[in-house]
């Protein structure tokens, strides 16, 4: 197996491949090199410079071309990528990155600390249209100490700081200096230090990446990574069935009902891992009914979340109990949980003064019927189905729920920004860092800010502030554990579920090792045995 190849043999092999020579064909060890990975995606990337990109399609591709100073290991801990190591000063104000010395840009120019400084200057430049500048505003100064040492100093300790030095701020200075970043040809013809290089991008059709022979962690075994843009999910599934794409993301229905034929079992492998996101039901704290904690708790008890996971996601997800993904380090499993208990819900509603008087089955307090509307966005059937189940369950405890589905921009601009809602059924994608200051802190309730439910709790505020001021992981785990307990007790949101990502990949790809972070983190180590290879790249 190729695992046993001595490093020197590997280097020889890479050189042989660089020259385009096929002389190594007889060598037994190179059987793992070659073939292409063809993935079908719904959305097309728009720009390949990470700091300008806002869509996940762009970031997915850019992350194969650009490396960052740091990255996450399989268990979501921060490890070095272009940075070999780093030192954080005891007061938490200064980080010194020691960069790798063996990294070159794909045109052969060595990667140095100047490239990082250039990236930092560009992202903080007011004329750069980026959505990510805020994190770098906390930086007091950034300096190049020598070609491979880079120092940043913060105004105050800022724990998410380290995670911000991913591929956002690494740019090839020698190609960009002196020109405006948005006008640069690099926007569509990326030049990076990562495992793959951009070969061709045909808008509306496909994007081809080829293995980078100069990648510091070794040339990827696959020759090419081809991304085909297929906007219709049903078409994409047919392409998979016809064997013309090797990988796509399945829906829960496709995963559990449509991919169990002998054809699929023989040719494909399916994976599941929790996504970094959760779906929730949020209450507007400006609405008098929902200011009563008992009402929120009653609703939590009246909803059977297991039933939602089983019915809507066909079991392909996890019940969410906090704003963190289960099995990740900040997640606290020991929080008060709201098991499905309609009797308890009825009792809490009675305590809160909501009583059943008439025969129409809707509770009344001060002459007002307990009737509210859940808003959700158009185009997400999972959310609509979830809302429908909630509607049915709440009717059983005497609460009438209406559902309104609204187009995304209208929902944001007309309802959320103006706080004209009673309850929302939406989802958050969350970062790997546990800092959630912007969603829960009481200072973040302005227009366009993310605490749109107007939640305020001084203990939560204190914990969120403390959590971003320390780098100590054990301490942060304690702080965010405490924060989750308060949130669980307060029920500002009812956390519903964490859906699974459901990728399906052709069986010929070997060495896929699923981890909490997903499957593609080691794509440069995937390989296809020679006899199973399907595509050959024409130089």
């Amino acid at each position, binding site marked *: 197996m190729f695992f046993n190849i001595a490093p020197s043999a590997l280097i020889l092999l890479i050189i042989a491949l660089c020259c385009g020579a096929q002389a190594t064909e007889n060598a037994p060890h190179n059987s793992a090199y070659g073939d292409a990975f063809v993935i079908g995606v719904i959305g097309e990337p*728009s720009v390949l410079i990470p700091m300008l990109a806002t869509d996940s399609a762009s970031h997915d591709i850019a992350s194969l071309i650009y490396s960052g100073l740091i990255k996450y290991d399989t268990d979501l801990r921060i490890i070095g990528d272009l940075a070999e190591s780093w030192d954080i000063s005891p007061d938490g104000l200064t980080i010194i990155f020691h960069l790798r010395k063996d990294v070159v840009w794909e045109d052969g120019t060595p990667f140095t600390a100047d490239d990082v400084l250039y990236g930092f200057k560009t992202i903080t430049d007011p004329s750069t249209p980026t959505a990510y500048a805020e994190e770098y505003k906390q930086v007091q100064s950034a300096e190049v100490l020598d070609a491979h040492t880079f120092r940043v100093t913060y105004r105050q300790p800022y724990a998410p700081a380290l995670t911000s030095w991913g591929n956002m701020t690494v740019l090839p200075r020698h190609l960009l200096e002196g020109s405006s970043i948005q006008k640069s040809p690099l926007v569509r013809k990326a030049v990076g230090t990562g495992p793959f290089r951009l070969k061709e991008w045909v808008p509306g*059709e496909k994007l081809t990446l080829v293995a980078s022979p100069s990648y510091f962690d070794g040339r990827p075994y696959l020759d090419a990574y081809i991304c085909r843009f297929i906007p219709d999910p049903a078409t994409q599934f*047919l392409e998979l069935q016809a064997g*013309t794409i090797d990988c796509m993301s399945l829906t829960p229905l496709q995963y559990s009902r449509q991919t169990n034929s002998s054809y699929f079992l023989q040719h494909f492998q399916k994976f599941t891992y929790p996504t970094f996101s959760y779906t929730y039901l949020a209450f507007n704290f400006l609405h008098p009914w929902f200011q009563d904690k008992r009402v929120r708790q009653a609703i939590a008890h009246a909803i059977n979340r297991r039933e939602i996971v089983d019915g809507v996601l066909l079991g392909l997800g996890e019940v969410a109990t906090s704003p963190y993904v289960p099995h990740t380090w900040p997640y606290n499993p020991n929080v008060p949980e709201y098991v499905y208990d309609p009797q308890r819900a009825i009792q809490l509603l009675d305590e809160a003064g909501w009583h059943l008087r008439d025969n129409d089955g809707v509770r009344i307090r001060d002459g007002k019927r307990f009737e509210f509307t859940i808003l959700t966005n158009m185009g997400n059937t999972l959310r609509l189905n979830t809302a429908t189940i909630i509607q049915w369950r709440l009717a059983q405890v005497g609460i009438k729920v209406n559902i309104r589905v609204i187009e995304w921009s209208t929902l944001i601009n*007309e309802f959320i920004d103006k706080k004209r809602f009673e309850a929302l059924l939406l989802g958050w994608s969350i970062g790997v860092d546990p800092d959630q200051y912007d969603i829960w802190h009481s200072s973040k309730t302005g227009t366009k800010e993310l605490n749109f439910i107007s939640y305020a709790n001084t203990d939560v505020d204190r914990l969120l502030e403390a959590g971003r001021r320390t780098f100590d992981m054990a301490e942060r785990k304690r702080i965010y554990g405490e924060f989750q307990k308060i949130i669980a007790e307060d029920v500002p949101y009812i956390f519903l579920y964490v859906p699974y990502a459901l990728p399906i990949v052709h069986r010929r790809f070997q060495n896929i090792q699923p981890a909490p972070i997903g499957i593609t983190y080691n794509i440069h180590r995937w390989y296809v045995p020679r006899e199973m290879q399907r595509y050959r790249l024409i130089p």
Partner: protein
Amino acid sequence: MLFYCFKRLLGMVPVFFGVTLLSFFIIQLAPGKPTDRLTDLNPRITPEARARLEQYYGLDKPIIIQYVAWLSRVVRFDFGTSFSSDARPVLEKIWDRSVPVLDRRLMVTFLINVISFVLIMIVAVPVGVLAAYRPHSWIDRITSVVVFVGFAAPKFWIALLLMMLFSVTLGWFPISGIKSLHYASLSETAQYLDRLRHLALPVFVSACGGIAGISRYLRASMLETLSSDFIVTARAKGLPESTVVFRHALRNALLPIITLLGLSVPGFVAGSVIFETIFGIPGMGQLSYQAIMMRDYPVIMGLLCITALLTMIGNLIADVCYAYSDPRIRMR
């Protein structure tokens, strides 16, 4: 005739600017802004950053100023740059000079619509004539049923069924896209064949509604013509049946169809949105759908201008054809 065309072309100018003015204001009525995709529910954005982005895209100015700025560029044939993060010029998105002509978005959509238009005419005219010539016969009944089913069935559903049969089960045609992955390695003839194979299903799907509609219209109009007095005269004077049907009846029956076709040009572009999305075809329909979803004003306006122009030209051609086939109109 030339003078007529010139007059009509001149008349298009105010109409064109009226269309752009109306469109420019109407698209601003939709909630949301182009910058929303950067700023909505983004924890890392501050009000200052939002204002800066709006200023960058010129959205902080009053609409009328934005329109004047846009117009002053358009008269110089500059449709501006897209608001999406790739920031490419609008014209380059629609007509990219760096790729082969057949790959340019406008060409892709144009080609599919032209081929499907030809297909519609080739199929619909004989079907319509035949159905009208023998009304209520078995052939009329069968074509009616087939045509109505084709008209009523949703296009996306037909598309999926065809893909399952011809691509997954039989493997005759590719499912989506306009070129195969190994396109570059093919010989020139094989490359054209490859393109044609990719076009087969989309062209069929986009034509099937048209075939149904046109053949029914033609049947009705043909029935009416065949029962008029001049046909009786033609037959009475002993003309061969084929001359009666094709020269005397069909030419008259085609008149309303010409008007119909002139009016359906904007429908072609709108219909492209559906099948280009299903078949993953990089054409104008796909581009306009993405642009509308992202509130990419310059691209939307660019596409609207092209559609408006095409519609006006389509109407002009229809009128010219009308005049050509009906001498009475030429006189006026």
